[in-house]
């Protein structure tokens, strides 16, 4: 369990978006992890990440309930931007900011997939949602990132609801 403390902190840090709160949440999650150590089944990393994830959501509910306001898990209609995304030319700051701006459920799916390289099944177990929901959230996360990181992203853009 403890060898995965970096993964645990990374998740807490991305969900709370600051070091101080991430440390508090991780502290709390570690206490739980110790307490439920007997309940460890299967792989340690998803197990620990599930505990950390729940501690983060509990914390967000208490401290920033607005961030957990219901989001629509259904992907929007495909609206591919015509311009190619030159992702490799993006700077780190822009990427980090765009991820930080994602709604929590999408951010969580993205971090677990891209930074922890977990499978859909593992992410579903950690987030407590069906695999289909993980897929839509990941698709939404990537689409929102793509929009935020478009070369012309600085220009205000109207959202068209169909």
């Amino acid at each position, binding site marked *: 369990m403890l060898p995965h403390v*970096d993964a645990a902190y990374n998740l807490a840090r991305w969900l709370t978006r600051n070091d101080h709160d*991430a440390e508090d949440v991780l502290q709390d999650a570690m206490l739980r992890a110790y307490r439920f150590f007997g309940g460890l089944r299967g792989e340690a990393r998803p197990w620990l990440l599930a505990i950390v994830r729940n501690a983060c959501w509990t914390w967000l509910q208490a401290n920033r309930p607005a961030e957990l306001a219901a989001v629509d898990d259904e*992907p929007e209609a495909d609206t591919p931007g015509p311009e*190619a995304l030159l*992702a*490799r030319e993006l700077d780190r700051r822009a*990427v980090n900011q765009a*991820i930080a701006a994602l709604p929590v459920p999408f951010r969580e799916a993205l971090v677990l997939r*891209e930074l922890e390289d977990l499978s859909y099944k593992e992410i579903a177990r950690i987030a407590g949602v069906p695999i289909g929901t993980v897929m839509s959230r990941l698709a939404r996360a990537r689409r929102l990132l793509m929009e935020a990181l478009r070369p012309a992203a600085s220009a205000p853009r109207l959202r068209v609801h169909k």
Partner: protein
Amino acid sequence: MRDDKALHAYLDGELDAAASLELERAMAENPALRASYERMRELSAAVREKADYHPAPVRFEVSARRPRTWMLAPAFAMVLLAGIGLGVFLAQPRDDEALGADVVASHVRATLAGRLVDVPSSDQHTVKPWLSARLPFSPPVADLSQEGYALTGARLDYVAGQSVAVLVYKRREHVIDVFVSPAAREAAPSASARDGFNVARFARGGMRYWIVSDLNRNELDDFAKLLAR
């Protein structure tokens, strides 16, 4: 839309062989679909290469490095339990010594950091359920406001190898930390001082209490008596 989900699944290596073949064929016939996939793949690569990965701060890492044996959880747990059992019988005074140092350290840390409470409340009916929900035991929370000791909240801490509830009271501007954890047997009140703080402790009703404060000795002992009644 279905294609869109399939693109993500393909990118993530989650599409089965048949569906992958089908998608590859579709992309070969449809340059727009292919371009859409390329953009997605590029985005995924950018996130992996450029997003910050936050490793745990040192204080978490230290505990992570010590026992790689955590991987041998069952054996370790048994050794731990045996150790605790032995500790109870053989090492009571040393145990108390370590606990005394830990609770004073926790008190100092909380005071320095200005983070005295996780749940700020003067209402025992708020504090108690908050603690019960987070601990494997339910610590009694006394209302001593009539006696001049105002409850300001509670926090969780981890001392001497176990999770404890810390009830925080105030007497004038003095902070009083009460550390509560389960105890097998009763213990008569005793007092000591450490690092300039007054410490009182006793055990009753299945709980062990350690009280730490910079409050004067007499008032702290009064407080301990009120708590123990």
